């Protein structure tokens, strides 16, 4: 009964005309800035902080939430169409999303991404409603030692995400880890791999790296390919090809469901959120797929999983903020700032003292997701037509978008230079048959690996046994060990089994 009351309270708050309008403004703005590379949700939301001074608290948070998950929808559009991630959580969608588009099936990819996000959005809201605020406690169970073990597990799976040889993907991943150490060491404050350049003090930005490796890398290989084959991207013949087929749906049910669960879980953890959730989902889908060789060549699962995961992650990350006062990342930091300006202290008492704020925001996500699908699906036809633009026009356009996008991150010209260099590397990696996917995943995880190792060790008084004595951490490390042992001994067990079958 209590659940029913909460949901009704949420609907009555979210359905007021002003809050509906704020929700719409939020999701619309979110989609637009999701499409624009460089201008991410954090930057947009901080621009809007002064605007929220004059707004009602619930309306303000509904709008900001809309921007965040709206950006998850928008971000996939450029990833799929032109191989440029619109924002960080859509980086991984580039890998298979763009390949699907190249096979002439951009429409289905966009459709699956939109419907997968809708499912993830609705399921996340249901999850929050059913399990409720106690969910936030998950954030506290995952301290630095647990995070460290989770990342170790993730990094081991990374080696399996590439289709090519394990050795090449290991090389690519190691380069990613080395790149992630660029900048100031958090413990000693020493500069590492900065070559005395102040630009590198704060490390390399994920969007700069991804736009270069994927966007510019693509433009360069395109320029080379054009001489042999003018029409690279196959165009859809008729409108029925714009929507996902039965086969697409069949392939996507699983990834969408798993992506949602994963996104929900990662969204609750501090310091990871939507981006890590989308990476995790991709790695998982590839690992459990019966045909992992299709990944990287246009597997729709590689779109369905991550895109559901990032939406679920974006929405779930509101739970630890609103119930514990813990912002899981930069975006939630901005939301926390806005709440504080309005005199609302996010924490365990918020849910009791201002239930209309909590449930209003949660239920508005349900409404916002429906708005997003209504907004996005009719546009698929128009977006896909973009692919009919000849490469001689599209390629310079991509180049310009990447340059503007990387500049608008920090208004810093050095980001543009770094992005172009990353692009050149992306092209050379393609030539050397090195997959950039493990690099980008290892880059993201590498930063977290080091900081969680440092703080994890400090929490354990400098004794590494902390990673084995805390139960969740120990389980995760055991899983990592099992993966290594099973793949190393895989061949051996297989031979034994075959032998036994032969003899019987």
């Amino acid at each position, binding site marked *: 009964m209590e659940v029913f009351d909460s949901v009704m309270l949420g609907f009555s708050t979210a359905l007021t005309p002003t809050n509906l309008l704020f929700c719409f403004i939020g999701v619309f703005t979110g989609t637009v800035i999701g499409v624009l590379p460089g201008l991410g949700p954090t930057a947009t939301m*901080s621009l809007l902080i002064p605007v929220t001074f004059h707004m009602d608290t619930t309306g303000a948070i509904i709008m900001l939430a809309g921007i965040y998950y709206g950006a998850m929808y928008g971000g996939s559009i450029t990833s799929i169409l032109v191989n440029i991630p619109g924002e960080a959580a859509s980086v991984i969608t580039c890998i298979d999303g763009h390949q699907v588009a190249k096979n002439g099936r951009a429409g289905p990819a966009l459709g699956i991404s939109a419907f997968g996000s809708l499912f993830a959005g609705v399921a996340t809201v249901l999850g929050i409603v059913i399990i409720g605020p106690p969910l936030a406690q998950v954030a506290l169970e995952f301290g630095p030692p647990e995070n460290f073990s989770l990342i170790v597990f993730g990094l081991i799976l990374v080696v399996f995400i590439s289709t090519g040889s394990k050795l090449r993907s290991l090389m690519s991943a190691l380069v990613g880890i080395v790149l992630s150490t660029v900048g100031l060491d958090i*413990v000693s404050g020493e500069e590492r791999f900065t070559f005395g350049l102040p630009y590198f003090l704060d490390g390399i930005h994920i969007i700069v790296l991804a736009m270069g490796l994927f966007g510019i890398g693509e433009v360069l290989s395109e320029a080379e390919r054009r001489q042999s084959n003018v029409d690279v991207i196959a165009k859809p013949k008729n409108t029925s090809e714009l929507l996902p087929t039965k086969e697409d749906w069949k392939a996507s049910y699983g990834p969408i469901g798993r992506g949602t669960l994963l996104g929900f879980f990662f969204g609750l953890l*501090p310091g990871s959120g939507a981006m890590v959730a989308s990476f995790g989902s991709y790695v998982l889908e590839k690992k459990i797929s019966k045909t992992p060789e299709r990944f990287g060549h246009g597997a729709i699962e590689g779109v369905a999983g991550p895109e559901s995961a990032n939406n679920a992650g974006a929405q779930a990350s509101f739970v630890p903020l609103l119930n514990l006062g813990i912002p899981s990342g*930069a975006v939630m930091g901005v939301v926390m700032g806005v709440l504080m300006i309005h005199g609302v*202290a996010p924490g365990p008492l918020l849910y009791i003292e201002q239930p209309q704020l909590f449930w209003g925001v949660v239920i508005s996500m349900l409404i916002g997701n429906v708005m997003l699908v209504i907004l996005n699906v009719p546009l698929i036809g128009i977006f896909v037509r973009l692919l009919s633009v000849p490469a001689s026009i599209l390629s310079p356009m991509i180049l310009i978008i990447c340059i503007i996008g990387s500049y608008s991150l920090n208004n810093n010209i050095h980001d543009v230079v770094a992005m172009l260099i990353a692009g050149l590397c992306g092209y050379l990696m393609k030539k050397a048959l090195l997959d950039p996917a493990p690099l980008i995943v290892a880059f993201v995880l590498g930063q977290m690996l080091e900081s969680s190792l440092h703080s994890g060790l*400090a929490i354990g008084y400098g004794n590494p046994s902390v990673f084995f004595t805390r139960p969740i951490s120990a389980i995760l490390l055991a899983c990592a060990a099992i993966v290594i042992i099973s793949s190393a001994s895989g061949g051996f067990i297989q031979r034994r089994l075959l032998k036994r079958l032969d003899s019987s």
Partner: protein
Amino acid sequence: MKKFLFSLAAGLMLGHTFVSDAAAEYPEKPITMVVVYGAGGSGDTTIRAIADYAQRTTGATVIVENRAGGGGTIGVSYLSRAAPDGYTLGLVSTSPFTVTPYFKSVTYDPLTEFTYLGQYTVSPAPVIVLADSPFKTMEELVAFGQANPGKLRWATGSPRGTNHIATEAALRQNNIKSQFVPFKGGAKAMTALLAGDIEFAVVTDFGPALKNKQVRLLAESGPNKIKGHPDIRTYKELGYDLTLPIFLGVGAPAGIPDEAVKFWEKVLHGISTDPGFADVLSKYLTPQSYLDSKSFTDRIHTGYVNTGETLKELGLLDK
């Protein structure tokens, strides 16, 4: 509603809505305010409130830009290199201007390369423990630290920032060997405290957790009492040598035109009596504390020099 839509449009167009048409009078083009930290924290939110106030009261267009990183030093170094024309200003805070230069090579000199326009607040940075922590007073915490070398775990929002240095000095003065846990950002330090992974934290953004009764205050690391908490003693009262006030103000590259200095002194003085701004500050439990350009400059210059001397005396500097 109208007001909202207007500010939304203004916000989305990065504030390029209109430019004052009065010729040759400062400001004649948009002003950029650089926040040397990420969006959402107290420094960022207060600068945005000041920009909002300046736009409303003077008609000037003010754009806020975040240039976070390196404990604020990346943004400050950018500010030092900006043109001294009065159109690029920045947030001035304790760590990058008076503490960090002693621990890290920075490309700017706090004594010569900046014009300090005014201070608007001094924030508290208390020692906090969990609400159900066994430590009821600072003395109990100190006694535990002395009896259990290396077992007292604590964190701040940024390693080698003001909070870290002041408290490290206090612990050393009490002969405590402690376990500092490095985190990037106050939110992570708070999370570790709430999860029970550390014994105490020294952070500025503690307001919500205190209001929610998740934490308790033991002492204030700065020299001033926390508003509304007269019973919480400061490091100064406890007899610790290094007490650093966490001030926030506005600055610019050295040598900006006089009219720009006067303009911003007027804005900062005006906002120091503005009830709306007092309300914003009170959310962070920080009082209005206005200093004009001259007094603020004195505070930073003497603060920078004195901090260096104290650090040397305490043996915290290896230089």
